[in-house]
């Protein structure tokens, strides 16, 4: 059996009321209902009758929902989904990548010179970790944040998927990339760093291969996000706000 005021909660969230307001409202309604039920029981009603009487006194789901809709502010994600799902994730991604790249290039520029024999081994662990984070974790983390906001606030907007697509593409395009070129005939190989990914084919940078890799990884991230959204949607709808 569902908790009291579940319908009120769902209707308010779907109408765009901020989750924290909905949560507080429902908690207070449930406390009020418990007090009224106790009062009616003390007045002599049996448990079922007391519960029913208390529920009538609190008000119908429709009355409670309408009262809140008239007064409570709408969440930003409901008022401006383009900003929350379309703009904010991209700005966040660019800001984080810019901060990481700036820090890493400041750190590596003095040591990554041919006269000093390239990057010292002690730096390689840090470089690999940062490269892994920007390449594999940052984009999924931001996309997961978008999905969480959308599910929690019951916002089903096209902007969510535009935002996830943009993040999937941008996070695979911009990052901190360590590019390792294996030595082959005529090329000594080496390690370089860039904000954009680089794929070498036969000792040369291949724009086509690079773009294909970016597109493939973006599609994979988008599909994972879509599958996760579908799997989690029912769970969010049935859980507490």
């Amino acid at each position, binding site marked *: 059996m569902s908790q009291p005021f579940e319908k009120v909660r769902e209707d308010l969230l779907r109408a765009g009321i901020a989750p924290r*307001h909905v949560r*507080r*409202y429902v*908690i*207070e*309604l449930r*406390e*009020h209902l*418990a*007090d*009224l039920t106790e009062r009616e029981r003390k007045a002599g009603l049996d448990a079922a009758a007391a519960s029913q009487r208390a529920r*009538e*006194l*609190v*008000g*119908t789901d429709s*009355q*409670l929902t309408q*009262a*809140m809709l*008239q*007064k*409570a*502010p709408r969440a930003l994600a409901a008022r401006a989904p383009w900003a929350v799902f379309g703009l904010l994730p991209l700005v966040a991604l660019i800001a984080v990548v810019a901060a990481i790249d700036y820090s890493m290039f400041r750190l590596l520029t003095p040591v990554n010179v041919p006269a000093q024999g390239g990057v010292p081994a002690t730096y390689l662990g840090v470089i690999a970790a940062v490269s892994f984070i920007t390449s594999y974790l940052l984009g999924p983390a931001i996309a997961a944040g978008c999905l969480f906001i959308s599910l929690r606030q019951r916002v089903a907007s096209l902007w969510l998927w535009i935002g996830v697509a943009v993040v999937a593409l941008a996070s695979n395009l911009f990052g901190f990339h360590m590019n390792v070129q294996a030595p082959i005939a005529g090329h000594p190989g080496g390690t370089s760093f860039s904000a954009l990914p680089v794929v070498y084919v036969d000792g040369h940078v291949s724009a086509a291969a690079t773009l294909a890799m970016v597109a493939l990884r973006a599609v994979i991230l988008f599909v994972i996000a879509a599958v996760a959204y579908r799997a989690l949607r029912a769970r969010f709808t049935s859980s507490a706000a």
Partner: protein
Amino acid sequence: MRSTNPNFMAGVPELMILRLLQDRPMYGYEIVEAIRAQTGDVVSLGEGVIYTVLHTLEREGALKSHRRTVERRSRVYYTLTAAGKKRYGDLAQSWTALAEAIQSVIKGGSRVPAI
């Protein structure tokens, strides 16, 4: 959910809530019960709807809320702020003047000053 004379009730819940909270912090159920008791059931607010009024007053700075556990029950208590006290003073003055004016009209008395 009961409601009392909806056409005349605009502003009444707010006035009563602010007045009751002048004495001590209270939670929603307590406020509804106190209003019912003090008005002899003439005024009975919608039990659930009172929370939207409380939340609005809190957003507007007239009330503050805090959670407190009393007798193993967690409750949200509301307290009047300085802004809330001032708001109550203004509202009470307006309502008193309005009530006197209406009384005067009902009794067929002389002209009363504008509110």
